[in-house]
């Protein structure tokens, strides 16, 4: 009897070890990791569900909130459980150089020229175009702010301000508030004097700032009246308008936009299926409905043409919005994020 129990235990341990063997990874379903929220909900509705229905490929979803460290650990650990990941541009650049992502065959994806500038990268396919900019509650201010100079004007627009707890997007806004033209922002920020200038400008409103860390905090801060003006993600604010009946206005003037990308993690056992899904997601007739759902821009030229004006007016890819906006300088941030974050934290502590 006793021997029987021990044998059973040993056998079940052996069985468990066999199941957990790394080689079994190839049997898992195509796994996609994106950024959650309204954006991922729209991806599920318009991309993943129809793709599964059409091809019979099961898709497992996961969500994350960025960080090249996580991808490096997954890939170099040798048993990544994600195949397709939506990454920000700095992760795309860093990860591509480090060899964390599969190089893409652009002829299989229908050619780079199908995409808006910057969306076709050797390691990634542009998935969404997002914006961070000045957002306010139109119920609170009838004649709202028009630019970052207004954002700094505590007399005309009394109340607190929400800014991201970090130097990214914050220093850009500060320089534009100090009269720097959008096209010159990164030129100025690349000089030590320019960085000093940005922090000096931030000093002016420092005691009136509420710092946010998670994207979801932005609309909440505005909705609760905690802040009067905010520099937050436009899509989050516009989604709150639709789901919670808010009246948030996005000021496209001097907003900052960037592209997110889908990448395939190096050594993915589902590589072929991932490429298939990438092709599916970038078909214009599939992609064209995405902005209406997620309030984010899309990356193929043909799909952008099919977006109705009522929707595209709320997108960073609209020509009128793009003309007055600033493209996030990824190279600048990859080089400087360490030191500027440290400087930001030192500044914030005082």
């Amino acid at each position, binding site marked *: 009897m006793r021997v029987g129990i021990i044998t059973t235990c040993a056998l079940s341990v052996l069985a468990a070890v066999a199941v957990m063997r790394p080689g079994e990874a190839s049997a898992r379903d195509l796994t996609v990791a994106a950024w959650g929220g309204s954006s991922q909900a729209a991806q599920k509705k318009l991309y993943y569900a129809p793709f599964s229905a059409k091809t019979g490929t099961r898709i497992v979803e996961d969500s994350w909130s*960025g*960080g*090249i*460290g*996580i991808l*490096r650990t997954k890939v170099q650990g040798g048993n990544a459980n994600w195949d397709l990941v939506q990454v920000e541009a700095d992760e795309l650049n*860093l990860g591509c*150089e*480090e*060899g964390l992502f599969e190089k893409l065959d652009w002829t299989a994806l229908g050619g780079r020229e199908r995409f808006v500038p910057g969306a076709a990268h050797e390691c990634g396919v542009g998935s969404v175009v997002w914006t961070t900019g000045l957002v306010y509650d139109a119920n609170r201010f009838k004649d709202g702010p028009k630019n970052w100079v207004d954002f700094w004007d505590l007399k005309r627009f009394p109340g*607190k301000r929400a800014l991201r*707890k970090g130097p990214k997007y914050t220093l850009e806004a500060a320089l534009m508030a100090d009269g720097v033209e959008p096209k010159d922002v990164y030129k100025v920020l690349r000089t030590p004097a320019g960085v000093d200038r940005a922090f000096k400008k931030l000093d002016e409103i420092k005691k009136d*700032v*509420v*710092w946010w*860390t*998670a994207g979801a*905090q932005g609309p*909440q801060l505005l909705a*609760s*009246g*905690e802040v009067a003006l905010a520099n937050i993600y436009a899509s989050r604010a516009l989604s709150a308008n639709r789901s919670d009946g808010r009246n948030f206005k996005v000021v496209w003037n001097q907003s900052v936009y960037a592209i997110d990308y889908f990448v395939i993690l190096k050594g993915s056992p589902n590589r072929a299926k991932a490429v298939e899904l990438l092709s599916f997601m970038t078909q214009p007739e599939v992609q064209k409905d995405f902005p209406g759902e997620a309030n984010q821009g899309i990356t193929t030229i043909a799909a952008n043409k099919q977006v109705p004006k009522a929707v595209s007016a709320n997108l960073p890819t609209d020509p009128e919005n793009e003309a007055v906006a600033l493209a996030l300088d990824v*190279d600048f941030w*990859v*080089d*400087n*994020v*360490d*030191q500027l*974050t*440290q*400087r*930001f*934290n*030192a*500044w*914030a*502590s*005082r």
Partner: protein
Amino acid sequence: MTAGAVTTARAAPGGPAHRPLDASLGAQLRRADRGRQIRALLLVAPLLLFLFVNFALPLVLMLAKSIDGREEARALARTGAALASWDGRSAVPDAAAKALVADLGDLRGTPALSMVANRLNYDVNGMRSLVLKTARRLPPSGDATLAALGSIDPLWQRPEQWAAVLRATDRITSFHVLAAVDARRDPAGGITMLPPQQGVMREIFLRTFWIASVVTLACIVLGYPVAYLIASATPGWASVMMMAVLLPFWTSLLVRTSAWVVLLQTNGIVNKGLQGLGLTSAPVPLVFNRTGAYIALIHVLLPFMILPIYSIMKSVKPDYVRAAVSLGASPVTAFRRVYLPLTLPGLASGTLLVFVSALGFYITPALIGGAGDQMIGFFIAYYINDTVNWGMAAALGGLLLLSTAVVFLVYTWLAGSSSPAWRS
């Protein structure tokens, strides 16, 4: 172990009459003891092995990252050798430029290039793109002079960049550990402090310990009476109060933190209540500042204080205090001389639990504190996840571990010397 010690102690005082037998008996006892100890050791061996493989080893490996510069040193081996005699100020010899071109040529197209570029960028801003750009446009090795590098980017003509390269060629590097205390090596090899506008780590460490101390103190003040109330209540009430303590304890940390934001915000319930009662005329800033961080941290950690104190209080018989009072002690004296010393072990473990947990917090202060209320855990996570500067994360983690260990030692020493109850 303790049982073995007791057995030996009992066996030792042998009378003179048993002297001939004593030696062999002692040996037998010792052998029996040793056998018991070995069996006990074998029983816990899997646990010890598990702890070593899953806890001690990764910890040591991670901490070693803070001083490990071998990968960089290997990647830049030739450059390091060529720069060995350089004084850190004068023009860099052409041999060093040639060596760098050779090293970068080998690194091109491998993940190691990115690793080296990142490591240099931690030291001097912009080195990452400088190295990647240089690697893309390497001059032919016969033509690899300083001037040739300078024509790729004039930054190569400045000694700062080369000093950074030299610093990255140490096999055992003090770079991250120094950076963790806002210091760095200057080109001459001495240690200089960072200018105050960049140095932030020491302040964050002090802040972390300060916040943890305030939170611990508040938890003692709030938790001790609550534990007493639960311990002395009727079983019915005690279980109701216990539920009130445990329910938030089981709720997700993130949910509790967000709930506090909702309660404490400018137009939140607390502020509306204060204004409704006429206590304040304008909303009090309770959130996105230190006050909010304290409130949320104290709430999250309070159960860790109440539970150990409660469990000790339950074991203290009310007879002791009654006896003290019947012998003429005032209630205050009875509490101070009898009850408090008896419950001190609970208080001590609660304090330690709360203090050490508070040191590692980062989500709660990140969501509910201001920009100046971040604790060291936030920055360790930042270096691990966002910038992948694991050397720096390891150095910060090591410092936190070290200072926590010091606090722990001081604490056990204090607790051990002040209360006999604690020692048992």
